[in-house]
């Protein structure tokens, strides 16, 4: 039986899943096999970051067909944001920035990214309204980044959370009218999936500051674009954001019962905890926001 009789469907799967996973696998093999021996142990998270960044840029190019520079539409900024943040925070991984400098760079990055992505929307609003949206978006984005920067550097739980939320974002994006955003979210999930598989069964794996920056930039951009340029409802957006905090209760419970909060069990439980709000978001989308027919 031919599961993929449609050339369009086959290319969608290649662009979204197969090529990004291959780039991650190849990049990790190359990085771990060669670069790690050549450089210091600090290059391990850098290998993951470079691999994930390259895979996402590859996926974007395959999905959208080109990089547009200078950017014309809001989504054209996504690869620029990935390519821009990766080297800055790679230097952080190699040299170890102070907390203040890192925070300052992260804050500046989310503000610039929010302005670049939302500028076409903000200029249509009154100044106060635009400022409130910009502040709220930047604050949420920065909070998520700081949270994952603390956790994703040390264990796989955060990687699993980000994978589940990315996959959920992909599904909801497609259902609410943007296959393009669905593909970008799906590619991020595939990249994280390949990265977790490569490292399996180790649960203490390093995404690094740069890897976290790439993932948070991509996911944040897709969620913002879904909310402001597509038809992703606010409550669905909120549920996906709630899912990002899945490892908070899991860590709390495991610590309470004196179990390893960073072990393989934590990874699985975090995945399940993230899946609940994501599944609710998908179900609500299907029930309330899914029009009939197949476009």
């Amino acid at each position, binding site marked *: 039986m031919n599961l993929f009789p449609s050339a369009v469907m086959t290319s969608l799967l290649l662009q979204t899943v197969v090529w990004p996973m291959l780039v991650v696998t190849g990049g990790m093999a190359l990085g771990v096999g060669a670069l790690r021996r050549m450089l210091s142990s600090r290059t391990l998270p850098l290998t993951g970051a470079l691999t994930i960044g390259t895979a996402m840029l590859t996926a974007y190019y395959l999905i*959208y067909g080109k990089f*547009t520079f200078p950017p014309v539409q809001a989504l054209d900024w996504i690869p620029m944001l990935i390519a821009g943040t990766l080297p800055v925070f790679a230097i952080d991984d190699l040299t170890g920035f102070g907390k203040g400098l890192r925070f300052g760079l992260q804050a500046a990055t989310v503000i610039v990214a929010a302005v670049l992505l939302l500028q076409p929307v903000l200029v249509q609003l009154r100044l106060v309204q635009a400022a409130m949206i910009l502040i709220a978006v930047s604050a949420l984005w920065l909070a998520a980044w700081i949270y994952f920067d603390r956790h994703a550097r040390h264990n796989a739980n955060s990687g699993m959370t980000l994978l589940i939320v990315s996959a959920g974002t992909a599904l909801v994006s497609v259902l609410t*009218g943007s296959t393009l955003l669905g593909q970008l979210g799906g590619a991020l999930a595939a990249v994280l999936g390949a990265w977790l598989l490569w490292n399996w069964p180790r649960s203490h794996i390093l995404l690094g500051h740069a890897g976290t920056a790439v993932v948070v930039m991509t996911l944040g951009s897709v969620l913002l674009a879904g909310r402001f340029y597509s038809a992703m409802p606010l409550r669905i957006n909120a549920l996906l954001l709630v899912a990002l905090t899945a490892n908070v209760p899991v860590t709390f419970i495991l610590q309470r019962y004196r179990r390893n909060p960073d072990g393989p069990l934590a990874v699985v439980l975090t995945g399940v905890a993230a899946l609940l709000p994501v599944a609710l978001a998908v179900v609500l989308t299907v029930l309330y926001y899914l029009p009939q027919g197949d476009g």
Partner: protein
Amino acid sequence: MKTAIIQSRFTRAMVGLSVLAALTFPVLSAAADPYHIQTGNPAGNYQIDPVHSMVSFTVGHLGVSELVGRFDTISGSFSLDSADSTQARVSVQVPIDSLDTNFAQRNKDLLGPDYFNATQFPTMSFVSTKVQWQSRNAGLLTGNLTLHGVTRPVTFNLRRIGAGPDPWGGYRSGYIATATIKRSDFGMNYMLNGISDSIAVQLNIEGKRQ
């Protein structure tokens, strides 16, 4: 006596009806005229009549069919006198969110970031730069089409339909302009393997002389 009165009334009625028929004959005969193209002088400045104008497009779908969509709202003005090409000008604005492909979900998909990105680029516009008449009623209309934040020159095949008075005391003229554009030229690159790059665009405009 009574018969004479009746005959007299009958005669008067017949005469009356004959006079009425004679008076209304031109109107009745006009109503029976078949539809015909008005060949009046098209010179002048015209405001586009939005309810008799539209932009439609045809795009290939999955390599198996051609889908037709349209933009329901249009505004602008034109002056297309074939006797004086130097004065010719066409200016058209189309709100992207007036798109209709006869299916709500597809409209939503097309208006989103995958294709038109109507939030960021709410208007499509065309401003002419040159008109070359090849005959009294046909020519080439060249101008700048702004779509999806990109402005590019496009040449339409222009056909004048007619010009003449309307029933409400005004004066109208109408045109059809057709062209084929590539959406990738306007930065709309997504899913070129499922939705064709080439898009046939047709602009039907009817204007009321100012």
